[in-house]
């Protein structure tokens, strides 16, 4: 088949694959696994440019230029990330990354104040907070969080110690490459967390206490949950 020897055919495939990839992550909202919502308009602009390029390049298909080995190599390079996406089916950053980057148990940034005044929901007797909010409270307004009942979601990282784990959420500024792991120590009774495993998403309900300057949660209930629509904190 002559078309399979035409370099233009492979160029079109590259544009088509990337167009479909960007369309897929935009329509499914999967782009949030990788980048902040801020980038969504840029992805849409990228999709529009790709559509125009694809139309113009398709018109050139009748021109024949024989593919050489370097064109094949380029094609393989372009295919690599797409294949990885299809095979690995990424979900969210694992706790492995948190260990490599170092878990931050103190949070200090200029948006602390903003994070303190975000709307706080109440669930029964518990205040629903994010790890970022809890760390921000404990740093700037400890009286607002010490001895208070809180409900917080995150991923489990179990270390060596029994009946303890670190609850982790990743804070991102632009994309997963800059994700900073935020963590809170959780202490639980053996019967509360019998089957807890690493990497599981859970909601911890319990009392927050500041001990030796660090915040800790004494869990009363731990329930397994699905990963939230937005896996990261911003």
């Amino acid at each position: 088949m002559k078309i399979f020897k035409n370099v233009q055919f492979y160029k079109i495939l590259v544009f088509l694959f990337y167009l479909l990839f960007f369309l897929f992550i935009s329509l499914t909202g999967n782009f949030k696994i990788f980048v902040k919502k801020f980038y969504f308009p840029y992805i849409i602009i990228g999709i529009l440019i790709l559509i125009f390029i694809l139309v113009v390049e398709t018109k050139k298909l009748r021109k024949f230029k024989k593919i050489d080995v370097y064109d094949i190599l380029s094609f393989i390079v372009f295919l690599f990330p797409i294949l990885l996406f299809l095979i690995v089916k990424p979900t969210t950053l694992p706790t492995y990354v948190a260990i490599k980057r170092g878990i931050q148990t103190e949070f200090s940034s200029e948006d602390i104040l903003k994070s303190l005044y975000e709307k706080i929901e109440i669930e029964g007797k518990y205040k629903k907070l994010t790890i970022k909010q809890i760390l921000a409270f404990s740093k700037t307004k400890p009286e607002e969080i010490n001895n208070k009942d809180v409900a917080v979601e995150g991923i489990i990282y179990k270390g060596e110690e029994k009946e303890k784990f670190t609850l982790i959420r990743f804070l991102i500024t632009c994309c997963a490459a800059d994700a900073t792991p935020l963590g809170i120590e959780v202490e639980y009774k053996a019967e509360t967390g019998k089957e807890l495993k690493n990497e599981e998403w859970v909601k911890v309900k319990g009392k927050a206490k500041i001990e030796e300057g660090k915040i800790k949660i004494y869990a009363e209930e731990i329930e397994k949950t699905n990963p939230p629509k937005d896996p990261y904190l911003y």
Partner: protein
Amino acid sequence: MEMIEKVRENFVKKVLRVIGILLLFIIFNLWYSGKLSELYKIFQSPKLQAFTIVLLAILIEGFPFILIGSLISGTIEVLIPEEKFKKLFPKNRFISAILGSFLGFLFPVCSCGEIPVSRRLIKKGIPPSGGISYLLATAIINPITLFSTYLAFSSGKIVFGRFILAFICSVFVGILISPSDKNEILKEYEEEHEHEENIKKFEEIFIHSGNDFLIMGKYLIVGATLASLFSTFIPRDAFLLIAKNKVFSILSMQILSIILSLCSYADAFVASSFTYLPSISKIIFMISGPMMSISLIIVYFAAFKAKFVKKLLISVFLTLFILGIIGSFIIGG
């Protein structure tokens, strides 16, 4: 020459064939021994998940900017005549470098997008010093990056330090390494010489954009792969431990910024988390990354001649190191 090229091509063909056969053999062997599910376990391993997410994050962030940059570059190529462009830009290499470093306010593209634009600007005849300083400064000297730096540090001093050192470095390197002949910098693309007949200007813009995307894109993938390998497997603490000494702290932050390949809009937030480092090291970290991160270095080799890229990288690295040392004496670390 043609003979050598043919031999090289045949060698690469053979290597590709051997790799393909090996892969098929491994997959068949796993299937035959009923261990194909082992492959699934490898694909689900946290390390591969982390590597894939970081790689795709860099690409999803970078590709739209490469496309936008390629579109701007294609538009400059097709719609703005060379003579007009030369008139717009001063011939003096010093003024041109200063002007180039502020062009980020006009074309505020991210680190990946500035490469096709600066290449096209130089090709269109602006003095190379202007193109080089634009290439180095744009990702830093633009409103979004400076504002995000302020948000991360809430310190006007850090924002000013980042701005002024980036400006000095880009202008100095721009003047230092710019040749009088643009052909000493620009890599020739075969595609640029393929002229299409009977096509509209609108189509021509997108043909140029598509070519730029294909050339820069594959290098961005290679660079992002290296960056995500380093980012996934090398702990950041390894760099922060050796950063306690003033000189080592500047050097190690320069190397860390090259490895991490962070976006210039985000690096300030990562830098602000290095609480026990001197301010000057954090500033150098935020300048070095947008100028010479590993993913950018690989794309530089796609756009410019290798000799020029080597000169550019050495000059930027040394200039930033010296500025860091001087800065640490002025502001006391």
